[in-house]
């Protein structure tokens, strides 16, 4: 078996290595992509634009707006005279939040009557408005808390007021740096795309050019042929993934607390999923166009949306959560985050590792069975 | 009156000169054969005349149209069939042919008439609705031919139309072209590496290494052949024959196929001398008429 495969691997390697451009791009492209996007994208909420209408400029309104600005999330883009202007700012997207302080807000506040503040939020960006709302509500609650404290001191009540009492600790990524939690997702995304698509195209291209027909006459099984075809790409992807992970550890300050052996295992298994998937697609496609269409639809968006990369899986409807079980990137991202950021060990991540391994075995055997039954042409 | 005239045509690909300063003129109502081995520059020349490739130097005129400047003007008159019988594999024979008819803006009624005619003449009836990817090469060739002539072009460019096709189909193919030329007052250029197909042409052009090394009417060329050809049967081993013939004077070239040896000699050498010089038994040697292979080989010898 091995002896039969070797010539194919050699031929494939010679072909790939001869094409300088494609070998460099296969090796370096993943790292370039990771860097570009690793630096570029973030989910931080900052500089949410606020328009303010505050005629009175009371102590309350000043304190409140100062608090908002110093939080780092907001930027005041306009101070308006009338509530109408605030509304038009929202409509034309000049600001996302409008805050209107009504006159005598502080007095009303202490007397506890009349609405005193109106907050208008442009809800169309559901993402940032969630933050905004939560933040504003929290800010108001805290403001109240302070006011109550002052009031209690003023009226000198029976008991000394209790101080705020929350100690917060963010584990694993204390500064909540975007790259740290996005990089594992990006790595998975890049491996999936380059792995699955390069495998698919390399096989289907031979199918379409009918060069397979030539080779099939040789006394080897189609299975040997495919394996021989895939191993070189697999090896190259492995090398490029290693480079990519190494560079990201170095440049993005990933803590990398976990075991490197475990990490390598996860990468290999995930790559196996990707190439197995590519293999399966190429066995069912007749042309490059079909193969690529299937590959594009089944890897691009699902790997980003259904993997927990950005959208937390347990917020999805239950049926959709079930679908995420067949997205291998989901397990891989969980494992990567565990190893790179938390230093988790295999014993802590065994469900994900087991699922990923089962997935790899299933997808590779599915394509092998398909090849054995139907051949490759 | 020349329908196509080509002057000092040159085309280079990097360091390689594919077509090297060639000039020729073609008369109307003729089949012109571009003969020569693969890579001799036949296809490149045809592509330049069709306007598919831009020459580096030289001029091409079809009647009065400068093809290099106005390729579109000449297109309506041209029919082109490429050496890989470029058809859409996922369309049927019928769909392929009619598609090209549409590109030439042939009116529907006329288009259907021509289609019916062509399927008759080329015997395509039973293959009409088969995907061209499923057709054998010989049939694909006929479909490609039909696609190339559906708009009744008066200039036919057929690039290696017979490669990979069986001898009977090749014969039929030339019959069709001849009939077409006569009925449509057309002119054809056919490139081929089968030197035997020269016989089907009015005029042949022998290509070698980017140059035309000989041109003229086939009969004329054979007549003007200055050398003698002998054929002999021998039981000697190849090495021994080579040894003998290489050391004999007056022998231009020889080639061995099977047990027979074909010898091209200087004009003034006859059987007697051959026998003397080589020691081959005279009763075994015969004089044969020269073929185009002989012509070609004698010309490319040096």
């Amino acid at each position, binding site marked *: 078996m091995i002896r039969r495969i070797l010539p194919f691997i050699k031929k494939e390697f010679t072909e790939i290595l001869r094409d300088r451009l494609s070998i460099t791009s296969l090796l370096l492209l993943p790292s370039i992509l990771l860097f570009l996007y690793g630096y570029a994208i973030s989910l931080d909420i900052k500089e949410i634009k606020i328009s303010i209408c505050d005629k009175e400029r009371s102590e309350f309104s000043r304190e409140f707006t100062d608090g908002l600005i110093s939080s780092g999330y907001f930027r005041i883009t306009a101070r308006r005279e009338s509530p109408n202007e605030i509304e038009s700012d929202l409509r034309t997207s000049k600001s996302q939040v409008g805050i209107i302080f009504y006159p005598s807000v502080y007095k009303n506040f202490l007397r506890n009557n009349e609405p005193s503040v109106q907050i208008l939020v442009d809800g169309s960006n559901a993402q940032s408005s*969630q933050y905004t709302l939560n933040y504003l509500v929290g800010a108001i609650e805290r403001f109240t808390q302070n006011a109550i404290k002052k009031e209690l001191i003023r009226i000198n009540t029976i008991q000394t007021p209790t101080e705020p009492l929350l100690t917060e600790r963010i584990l694993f990524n204390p500064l909540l740096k975007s790259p740290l939690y996005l990089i594992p997702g990006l790595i998975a995304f890049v491996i999936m795309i380059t792995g699955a698509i390069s495998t698919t195209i390399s096989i289907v291209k031979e199918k379409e050019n009918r060069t397979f027909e030539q080779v099939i006459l040789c006394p080897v099984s189609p299975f040997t042929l495919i394996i021989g075809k895939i191993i070189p790409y697999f090896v190259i992807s492995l090398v490029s993934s290693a480079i990519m992970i190494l560079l990201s550890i170095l440049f993005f300050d990933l803590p990398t607390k976990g075991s490197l052996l475990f990490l390598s295992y996860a990468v290999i298994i995930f790559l196996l999923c990707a190439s197995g998937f590519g293999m399966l697609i190429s066995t069912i496609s007749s042309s490059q166009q079909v193969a690529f269409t299937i590959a594009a639809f089944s890897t691009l968006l699902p790997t980003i949306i259904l993997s927990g990369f950005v959208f937390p899986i347990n917020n999805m409807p239950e049926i959709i959560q079930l679908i*995420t079980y067949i997205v291998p990137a989901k397990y891989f991202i969980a494992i990567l985050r565990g190893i790179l950021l938390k230093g988790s060990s295999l014993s802590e991540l065994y469900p994900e590792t087991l699922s990923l391994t089962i997935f790899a075995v299933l997808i590779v055997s599915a394509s092998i069975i398909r090849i054995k039954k139907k051949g490759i042409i | 009156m020349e329908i196509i005239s080509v002057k000092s045509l040159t085309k280079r690909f990097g360091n390689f000169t594919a077509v090297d300063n060639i000039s020729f003129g073609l008369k109307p109502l003729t089949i012109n054969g571009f003969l020569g081995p693969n890579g001799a520059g036949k296809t490149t020349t045809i592509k330049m005349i069709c306007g598919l490739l831009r020459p580096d130097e030289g001029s091409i005129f079809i009647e009065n149209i400068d093809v290099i400047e106005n390729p579109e003007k000449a297109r309506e008159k041209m029919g082109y069939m490429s050496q890989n019988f470029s058809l859409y594999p996922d369309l049927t024979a019928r769909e392929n042919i009619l598609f090209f008819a549409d590109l030439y803006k042939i009116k529907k009624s006329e288009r259907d008439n021509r289609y019916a005619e062509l399927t008759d003449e080329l015997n395509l009836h039973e293959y009409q609705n088969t995907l061209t990817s499923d057709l054998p090469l010989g049939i694909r060739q006929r479909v490609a031919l039909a696609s190339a002539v559906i708009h009744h072009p008066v200039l036919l460019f057929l690039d290696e139309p017979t490669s990979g096709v069986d001898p009977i189909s090749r014969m039929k193919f030339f019959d069709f072209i001849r009939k077409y030329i006569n009925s449509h007052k057309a002119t054809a250029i056919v490139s081929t590496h089968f030197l035997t197909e020269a016989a089907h042409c009015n005029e042949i052009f022998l290509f070698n290494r980017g140059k035309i090394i000989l041109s003229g009417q086939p009969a004329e060329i054979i007549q003007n052949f200055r050398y003698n050809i002998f054929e002999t049967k021998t039981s000697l081993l190849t090495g021994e024959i080579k040894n003998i013939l290489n050391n004999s004077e007056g022998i231009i070239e020889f080639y061995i196929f099977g047990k027979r040896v074909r010898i091209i000699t200087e004009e003034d050498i006859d059987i007697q001398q051959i026998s003397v010089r080589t020691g081959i038994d005279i009763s075994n040697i015969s004089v044969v008429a020269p073929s185009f292979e002989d012509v070609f080989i004698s010309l490319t010898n040096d």
Partner: protein
Amino acid sequence: MWVIISFIKKELRQIKRDKRILPILVVAPVLQLLVLGYAATFDIKNIEFAVCDFDMSNSSRELIDNFTSSSYFILKYQTHSTTEIDTLLSSGRIKSALIIPKNFEKQLYTDRNTKVLFLTDGTEGTMANVSLMYARTILSRFINRYNTGQMYRVPAIRYELRIWYNPDLKSSNFMVPAIFALLLSIVAMLIPSMALVKEKETGTIEQLYVTPIKPYQIIFGKMSAFMLISIIDVVIVTTIAVLWFNVPLRGSLFDLVAAILLFLISTLGIATFFSTVTNTQQQAMMSVMFLFFLPSMLLSGFIFPVENIPLLVRWISYILPLTYFIDILRNLFLKGSTISELWIQYSMLSLIGIAIFIFSLLKFRKNID
């Protein structure tokens, strides 16, 4: 004109003949929108959460109740060991934890420095951020209630919240138009990029070159076929967005159609361009994929806000048609913005579309050398 029509007919026939491609091009976007439209949600609820209550008092129980009744947190484990909390967090079984020390209640009544510890997993940044905000708010409320219990007159900010355009803050209202745009770019940019170059690979392009068909006719013929398929997708997918996901379509249908057509022209233009400058389907598809599609996914504002992108990279966002298209769609659907309000986006789309088409026409000469 006749030539283009017959070319389109031929294209459609070829697409139809491949039994797989048409179903995929029509069914896949629909299925994906149905799944992804639900999946792409920023709502953060049901944060898995554990409690370590060393106090076991009424107050500590009340605080825990405040957490669990909020629908933000879902109580998964209750334990008395901090090491267990550590393992739960590092294995990812829970995302945050609340630790209430002994004497919590006693200190609450007597001492100024009562403490509870709130832990959260920073590996999923969004979740961590939001859970912190929730925790702070819940705690402030808890204290306020506790303190105001001793007062006869309670000061409070009466605030009125008004959320415009998307009052329920449904993520799907925000994400469905964007997913729609991205699916459309697969159908109208990635796949067509292989179309023209396929004729180069099979050699049929030479056959076309010798006919009187003009280069622009070949391009328009090819692209119109994909335009047709894209429009079918647009109709189905818009219907699903509006009727199934209830994304409000507040803008005018005319503006929507204009935006879609402009977007299709620019994406098909990009496809054409790469089809003309490459020689194999593989090259064409890889270039479009890495030079346009991936940037479109990550830099267009689809998920990651454009304002967060460093300026140097943001220039890439500005040349992607998707950046403008997503912006238009979101504003048009949710705010009912008009062309005059979004003229910058509309003109950028047109500009990109026209520029890229002119560029590819210039490139696509009849000569193949």
